[in-house]
């Protein structure tokens, strides 16, 4: 027992030291450095990947439409914190510049909560008809919802909620979006990225905490049970749809929060961002990191973010130049991205940091989704 306690203390110590390093990291870089930018994006993607991890990793629901929550979160930011609804003139706890332009401008923290609420609601609406289905059918229906939301985003400019209040701004995007404006500190700017980084870090820590707590809880057990043997689980009194909805709704909320943050950070809500390939991008983080493995997913998100935003555009593309070749690698960038996905997956099929249970399921062939009831009794 004491050994276990000691072990636990060591872990906490390592975590705190790591956290300290991560927290002071931006101070070592220029305040608008590309590295801090990539880190901020990585943190925002960690929030999404950990959200998706609750859905796919914990509850075993293959969601190919996670981008829907990114979209809804981002649009919440667009609706409530930009000049998009210029007919309205509502300002709630916002800074000087935002107060000076027309539109609905609500403080970031409030929008963050609204975004979480909206996406949870959307998660329930999408989940209710979907989660009754099994296995890959969930995948295809969530994919379908993701695409429907994408289309609504693109065509929302034709949909008027009220006169002068279209649903979205279509491909033209909602730009610019209000910057974060927290109480007691200077308003954020596009050029000083440190505060953005710390906000993203706070969000990531929050979702990390929730992931850990949920994994070792009554709900966590119920999700494993449903994942491994749904029939046995419901026969043990676990309400399948409700329990899955809790996973789906929670995961959705984090997608929405990250989406709202990114909308403000990137200063735009553009319908073309919400394509199927983004769902795959986040899913790849989860699977590559190790399904269900919290630190694995964090690592997966960081790895793919840096590959996509730094390694390929800034490092690899310069290689031919450096060796004196007149050859533009940027034409090859998504081929390289694909190639890296294949290589990493083949080398580590169970993920970078595999989760203990998942690995066991694999070795023992448990919970392969074979939980059907037989039509004819044996």
């Amino acid at each position, binding site marked *: 027992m004491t050994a276990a306690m000691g072990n636990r203390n060591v872990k906490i110590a390592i975590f705190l030291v790591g956290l300290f390093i991560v927290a002071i990291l931006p101070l070592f870089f220029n305040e608008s450095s590309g590295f801090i930018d990539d880190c901020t994006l990585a943190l925002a993607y960690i929030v999404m990947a950990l959200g998706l991890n609750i859905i796919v990793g914990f509850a075993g629901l293959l969601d190919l439409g996670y981008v829907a929550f990114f979209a809804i979160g981002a649009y919440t930011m667009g609706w409530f914190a930009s000049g998009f609804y210029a007919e309205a003139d509502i300002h709630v706890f916002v800074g000087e510049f935002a107060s000076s332009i027309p539109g609905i401008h609500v403080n970031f923290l409030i929008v963050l909560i609204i975004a979480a609420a909206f996406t949870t609601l959307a998660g329930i609406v999408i989940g209710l008809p979907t989660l009754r289905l099994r296995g890959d059918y969930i995948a295809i229906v969530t994919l379908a919802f993701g695409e429907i939301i994408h289309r609504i985003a693109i065509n929302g400019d034709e949909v008027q909620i009220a006169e002068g209040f279209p649903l979205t701004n279509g491909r033209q995007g909602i730009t610019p979006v209000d910057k974060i404006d927290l109480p007691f500190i200077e308003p954020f700017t596009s050029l000083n990225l440190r505060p953005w980084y710390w906000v993203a870090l706070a969000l990531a820590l929050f979702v990390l905490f929730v992931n850990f707590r949920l994994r070792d809880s009554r709900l966590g057990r119920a999700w494993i049970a449903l994942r491994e043997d749904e029939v046995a689980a419901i026969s043990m009194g676990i309400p399948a749809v409700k329990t899955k909805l809790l996973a789906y709704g929670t995961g959705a909320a984090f997608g929405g929060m990250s989406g709202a943050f990114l909308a403000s950070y990137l200063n735009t809500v553009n319908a073309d961002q919400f394509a199927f390939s983004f769902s795959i991008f986040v899913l790849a983080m989860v699977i590559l990191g190790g399904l269900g493995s919290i630190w694995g997913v964090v690592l997966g998100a960081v790895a793919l973010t840096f590959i996509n935003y730094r390694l390929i555009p800034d490092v690899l593309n310069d290689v031919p130049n450096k060796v004196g070749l007149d050859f533009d690698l940027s034409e090859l960038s998504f081929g390289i991205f694909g190639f890296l996905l294949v290589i990493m997956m083949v080398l580590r099929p169970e993920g970078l940091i595999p989760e203990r249970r998942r690995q066991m399921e694999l*070795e*023992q062939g448990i919970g392969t989704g074979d939980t059907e009831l037989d*039509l*004819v*009794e*044996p």
Partner: protein
Amino acid sequence: MSMLVLDDVQTYYGNIQALKGVSLTVEEGECVTLIGSNGAGKSTTLRSISGLSPPRKGSILFEGQEIARMPPQDIVSLGISQSPEGRRCFPRMTVAENLDMGAYLRRDGEIARDRDRVYELFPRLEERSKQKAGTMSGGEQQMLAIGRALMAKPKLLLLDEPSMGIAPILVERIYETIAEINRQGTTILLVEQNANFALGVSQRAYVLETGKVALSDESAKLRENPDVQKAYLGA
């Protein structure tokens, strides 16, 4: 020369060792039973022979040929076929198609004759030849699984738990047929939980415990053995 010789066969699932050195022999024309409690390694022994779970160590000689690391299709073509645990019929194929799959590797002209022979052994299958296997009862599927294995015209037939989950009345019928198949000249290696019946049809038997052979003798003698009676027959 014995038809089948297993020598110190060790088989693993992942990191778990299921067989810890099984050695046994089957002579041509015999019916041999493996009994033992669940998890003793009976099914794994059969899977090792048929190539589904190749052993990590040890040798398996079939008619003098080493088959321990051959792929299943080569083992089938040498004349070993298996009726697996849980029957494993192709549920969306008809009875007749399932039987045809049994003869997949054969290219001789006697397939139709052998099908008739199976129908003779299991008249129920002929009645249902057009029915999808998945819609049949467990007992009927068991007949089909044995019939399908016979369609490969095996020299050695491996039967894994033919009585599992089947009504007593059908168990009786299936064992009568197994005895008949053996009489007609097919060598049989049988794995059973239901030791009473199995020892009834076989000439010799091995008792497996935790991945090793614990005991082997003629079936009739094992039936009299008090330890076996207590553990496997329910005295």
